[in-house]
């Protein structure tokens, strides 16, 4: 277990734990740069995680995982060599450095010796006095049982309840060939509730949850856990009466908060630096061009305190930033890690992220959201004669190259003559990234960030992210229901 003192100075944690010293780090970076390379870094990670789960009114799952390792990266032009090992020893890192430097094909003797010393300072975004990992397991288990009881009491049609709480602490240290060193202790937790409801006609599922880089008491404050539970139960019950969703292009109103997954899929991925450097994104070469209605300003902001998608420094040691992606409809910026920023002659934006030491970093989103507009959400609903009001979503996906993206509604209603009427079954919405935002006709004044459950997958790597959205009206997107 890491000692409290280590967590104040995480860089000392790795040096002490694995018997490293500055000289060893310099020597390994020197070895990594032995051939003609531009840059090398070492990424140390130590992660401990605990989870507990409730099924059928019993907290019958507990788990604990400890993982650690080191990744050595060597960059030469647009080539990346990466090697990792879960044995954090000088010998093993030396072997990894040799494997990684194979990417650089010419031997040179002239690289200046690396001197490790300068600290890269990040933000201070995680306001934790205690980790949820330190809350007695029995207290965490008790909350899951209370969730179970609350959900079962919500409606006699509730058949089953699954609840889980997971928490982790990820300690990272990055040392690079510029001699800079950065370290961070990243807490993360999540409470999830799933409810199955059943009536004579069928069964339905509802889910809700939340979390972030937070303390345990966050879930107790204002009885947030009750809100999660009721929302999950209500969604399952509402869906029991859902009618078939419509099929075809129509006006869609997206509720605030989690429906911001639209931005993540339609815009965010397409603006990641790697796809644009390679010219394989539907947004490539379009900076300065209109790609959205003038009502739309979209940012990616990794600096919001306590959020799931926020980080003090990214996984290359760069402090996170707020990047304007779209400003009043005009495409303004890309999300960059160091490599792609260097190759595109742009500044890194603190978006170089990786799932773990077993992965090389790449440009990833943090918290992606649209700034609020002026319309009250009621006016947006009232303005629609016939359409769909979608308030909750499952996952989404995008084909970067042709720009087509989907996201799947898990709770949606018909709008008829300006009123929200019947619930409809889940349906996938499909659109074209560079085009869908030009159809945004109204933007609400009710921006909300999601409750903190998002995980983004790219090239086999998962990282926690956030999204956010005010209520918006999109004039024409294809809804994939079954009713003509």
């Amino acid at each position: 277990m890491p000692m409290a003192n280590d967590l104040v100075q995480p860089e000392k944690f790795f040096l002490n734990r694995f018997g490293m010293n500055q000289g060893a780090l310099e020597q390994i970076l020197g070895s990594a740069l032995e051939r003609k390379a531009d840059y090398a870094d070492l990424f140390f990670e130590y992660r401990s995680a605990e989870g507990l789960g409730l099924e059928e009114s019993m907290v019958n799952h507990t788990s604990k995982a400890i993982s650690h390792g080191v990744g050595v990266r060597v960059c030469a032009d647009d080539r990346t060599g990466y090697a990792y090992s879960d044995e954090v020893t000088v010998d093993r890192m030396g072997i990894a450095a040799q494997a990684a430097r194979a990417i650089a094909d010419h031997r040179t003797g002239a690289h200046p010796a690396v001197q490790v010393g300068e600290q890269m300072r990040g933000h201070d975004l995680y306001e934790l006095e205690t980790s949820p990992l330190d809350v007695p397991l029995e207290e965490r288990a008790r909350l899951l049982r209370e969730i179970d009881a609350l959900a079962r009491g919500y409606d006699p049609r509730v058949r089953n309840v699954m609840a889980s709480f997971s928490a982790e602490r990820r300690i990272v240290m990055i040392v690079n060939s510029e001699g800079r060193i950065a370290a961070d202790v990243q807490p993360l937790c999540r409470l999830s509730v799933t409810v199955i409801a059943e009536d004579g006609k069928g069964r339905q599922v509802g889910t809700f949850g939340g979390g972030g880089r937070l303390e345990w008491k966050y879930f107790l404050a204002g009885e947030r856990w009750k809100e999660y539970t009721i929302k999950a139960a209500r969604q399952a019950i509402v869906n029991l009466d859902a009618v078939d969703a419509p099929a075809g292009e129509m006006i869609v109103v997206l509720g605030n908060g989690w429906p911001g997954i639209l931005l993540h899929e339609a815009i965010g991925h397409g603006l990641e630096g790697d796809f644009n450097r390679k010219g394989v994104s539907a947004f490539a070469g379009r900076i300065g061009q209109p790609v959205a209605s003038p009502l739309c300003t979209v940012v990616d902001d990794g600096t919001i305190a306590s959020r799931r998608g926020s980080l003090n420094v990214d996984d290359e040691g760069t402090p996170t930033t707020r990047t304007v992606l779209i400003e009043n409809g005009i495409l303004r910026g890309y999300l960059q890690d160091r490599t792609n920023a260097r190759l595109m002659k742009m500044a890194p934006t603190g978006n170089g992220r990786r799932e773990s030491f077993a992965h090389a970093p790449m440009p990833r989103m943090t918290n992606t959201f649209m700034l609020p507009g002026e319309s009250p959400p009621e006016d947006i609903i009232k303005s629609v004669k016939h359409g769909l009001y979608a308030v909750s979503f499952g996952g989404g996906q995008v084909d970067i190259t042709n720009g087509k993206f989907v996201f799947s509604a898990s709770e949606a209603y018909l709008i008829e003559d300006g009123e929200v009427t019947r619930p409809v079954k889940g349906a996938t919405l499909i659109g074209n990234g560079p085009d869908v935002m030009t159809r945004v006709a109204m933007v609400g004044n009710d921006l909300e960030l999601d409750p903190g459950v998002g995980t983004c997958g790219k090239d086999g790597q998962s990282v926690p992210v956030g999204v956010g959205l005010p209520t918006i009206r999109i004039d024409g997107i294809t809804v994939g229901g079954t009713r003509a």
Partner: protein
Amino acid sequence: MAQVDAALAEWALDEARRSGATAAEVLCVSAESLAAGVRLGEVEKLKSSRERRLGIRVFVGQSSATASTAELERDGLKDFIAHSVTLARLTAADPWAGLPDPVLHPAHVPDLDLADRAQGIVDADTALKIARTAEQAALKADPRIKNSEGAEFDSGRYQIMFANSQGFAAEYAGTSFNLGVAPIAQDDQGAMQQGYWFTANRHFSKLEDPAEVGAIAAQRALRRLGSRKIKTMRAPIVFDPDMAASLLRALAGAASGPSLYKGASFLVGKLGEPIASPNVTICDDGTIVAGMGSKPFDGDGLATNRKHLVDAGVLKTYLLDTYSARKLKLEPTGNAARSVGDSPTVSPTNLYLKPGSHSAEAIIGSVKRGLYVTELIGFGVNGVTGDYSRGAGGMWIEDGELAFPVQEITIAGNLREMFKSIEMIGSDLRWRSPVVSPTIKIAEMMIAGE
């Protein structure tokens, strides 16, 4: 550094017992891999890895906990195991928890030829050469192939060691080799489409020709150029083999024990009932020699087997591990799946739809107006209700011929009806993944477009 061997597993089981566990189970995985990528002919990435993890599941009576760690030194491991036992004590007693019935452990663990004896990790130069050959073939295929997301060749080797406190101990090794290529085609208007194709096998010598993999990837990108949206309508849908396999995965998820005992499956109560068209037979076979999804024993240490999940349209079995079998008052089916840090879950082994007699061309030829689906995106499959709605792309079929490419549409229905309306099954089954299918035709689904 500590060795990962039978002695370590035995020691860990003893240590669990000393800490107060009444039963325990250890799973160790060690893995090595090398991935090499090229893009536009140049080396883009090399990635080499080495990992070892120990997972332990401990029981104190009917209470259990799972834990995993990369810290294999015995001093640290001792504390870790003791902590796991403490976690178990704090967990609710679950009447269905526990190791499997010991008589079900196999006396003999078969050799399924899962590891290539002639070829270990492929060296970087060879891997780069294979990737380059594949990408070159794609780039040369047509002047409209103007860009590329590159080609990657991966090889990996893993060793799995399993032991429990009721005397079952066994290990096995496996290898995998995989080549994927992703060229990008561009039309006169600048619109781009990606094509992807791959070959994968446990044996290096059985991979398909890299140049052919590249050429197929190029053709897949090219045929998407000029894709357009179509009108909203109901129409017959032909799923290509990979897209059809995604339907089998959804069915297997709904047929898995944990989904069933939670009531979170549209197959609850359907055992022995017709759930698919009578021409549909789906097998799960964990014993296929050199199969991608084969294993000599499952995540509970029970023998894998060959069985019909669906026989002539009737659901014959669920897919069960020991725990879900006990809850459902059934026998385990050898489908316990395991990752080092988790308690057992359920997955199919090698799952396939038994091929029919039609060629893919004949199936397409049977459709007057309909859709040939070659791409699906998104997660719009609800295993609880069977509701299905996904983003799709492919080719429009007009009078039995592929007419033009289609994109930005969805196809929707419900898995219950979709499986019952499988009208034709192709003869084109190819083993590249653990879950595979030939081409299939579904009578009608809703297409949402303009």
